[in-house]
């Protein structure tokens, strides 16, 4: 179907009110970039979901990372997004300004060489991410073990997306259909959504990121909801296989085990975290039990944003008190957070 045909189809759309959640931050950005909302009928609402791993990292985790970075014998590494998110008191950027050893790396795998060349320090990667990133950490740990490195560890805040979607469905928030994330799905496969689709009678569609892909996926989901179907569709077969990336899945299974973990502003979600298995605990920088999560600004509505209850622009602080420069909550701090993305696009709804 061409984009014009889809738009034409939507012009005559007479379906019920439908709420579709896009799980991935890149989809959120692509939807705003493509002006997708302006092409949809009024009855179809798009919601942004929990797809930002930095935004849901609890304060206790940041505190632990700061503590490690402040240690004389330790060097801490992460991705740039992690810099500005505050723990209960400080962010890694604050700690860095006070002399902490924090550096940003393009790839966690670079740590192998760094640790080998500098045996006098403990090198820790703040390993945040969803299923897309988790296999890279698994590979890092495997390689560190093979080369007998003892001065390399990871501090994990790894999350899996399905338990979070299940929580959203259980919480009774009215999400009728899901635009499944593109790159998480490259790892877990489109089949991974089948069980949720069946149990909750909700359709899922995996889509690429161009405007015509996204529109087609939305059309697919809208028709499925109207007809009461709960299909799982893969409209991104050029990059996502039904069964996902088996090699990556095997590596994840070998290195990590699921466990309960805290999502910032949401609380504990059972089986939603990935933790190093016992045979790899020598590489764990203390990732378990980092559960405490006092809210930074009680007026911040990040929880509602992450669960798709409100649009970022509906938060009274959006764009006034809360901007990427003076963020009041993690959803504004991170590049992948819904509030930050909306702010940068001056989000029209």
């Amino acid at each position: 179907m061409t984009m014009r045909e889809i738009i034409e189809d939507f012009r005559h759309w007479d379906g019920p009110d439908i709420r579709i959640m896009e799980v991935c931050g890149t989809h959120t950005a692509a939807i705003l970039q493509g002006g997708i909302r302006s092409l949809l009928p009024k009855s179809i609402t798009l919601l942004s979901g929990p797809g930002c791993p930095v935004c849901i990292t609890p304060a206790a985790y940041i505190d632990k990372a700061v503590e490690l970075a402040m240690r004389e014998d330790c060097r801490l590494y992460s991705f740039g997004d992690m810099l500005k998110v505050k723990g209960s008191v400080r962010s890694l950027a604050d700690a860095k300004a006070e002399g902490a050893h924090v550096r940003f790396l393009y790839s966690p795998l670079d740590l192998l060489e760094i640790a080998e060349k500098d045996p006098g320090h403990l090198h820790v990667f703040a390993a945040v991410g969803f299923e897309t990133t988790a296999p890279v950490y698994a590979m890092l740990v495997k390689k560190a073990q093979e080369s007998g490195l003892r001065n390399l560890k990871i501090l994990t805040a790894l999350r899996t997306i399905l338990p979070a979607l299940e929580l959203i469905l259980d919480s009774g928030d009215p999400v009728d259909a899901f635009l499944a994330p593109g790159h998480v799905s490259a790892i877990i496969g489109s089949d991974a959504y089948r069980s949720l689709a069946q149990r909750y009678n909700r359709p899922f569609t995996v889509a690429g990121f161009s405007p015509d892909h996204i529109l087609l996926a939305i059309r697919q989901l809208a028709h499925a909801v109207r007809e009461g179907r709960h299909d799982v569709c893969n409209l991104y077969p050029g990059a996502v296989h039904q069964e996902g990336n088996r090699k990556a899945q095997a590596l994840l299974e070998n290195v990590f085990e699921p466990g309960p973990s805290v999502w910032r502003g949401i609380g504990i979600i059972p089986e939603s975290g990935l933790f190093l298995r016992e045979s790899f605990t020598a590489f764990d920088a203390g990732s378990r039990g980092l559960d405490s999560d006092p809210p930074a600004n009680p007026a911040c509505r990040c929880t509602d944003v992450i669960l798709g209850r409100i649009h970022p622009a509906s938060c009274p602080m959006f764009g006034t008190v809360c901007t990427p420069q003076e963020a009041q909550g993690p959803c504004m701090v991170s590049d992948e957070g819904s509030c930050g993305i909306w702010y940068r696009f001056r989000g029209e709804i």
Partner: protein
Amino acid sequence: MCVAVPGEILSVDGDVATVDFFGNRMRVSLGLVDAKIGDHVLVHAGCAIEVMRREQAEELLVLLAELDEVLAPEREGRVR
């Protein structure tokens, strides 16, 4: 953070490849995929996570370049 960027494999040395992104060359681990010279791979955090069809790789590159203009200005230590 889950953004993955497509690139083309220029050469392979064991389980590491040299991959071309927008004319930039980077070393990328091939530990998670079966890929060869000329393949397009989806790269995340220094690691190829999947082999990708050329047309979709090109579409994604165009889109990411557009998004970058809006989202990237102050970004540091980016994943890609």
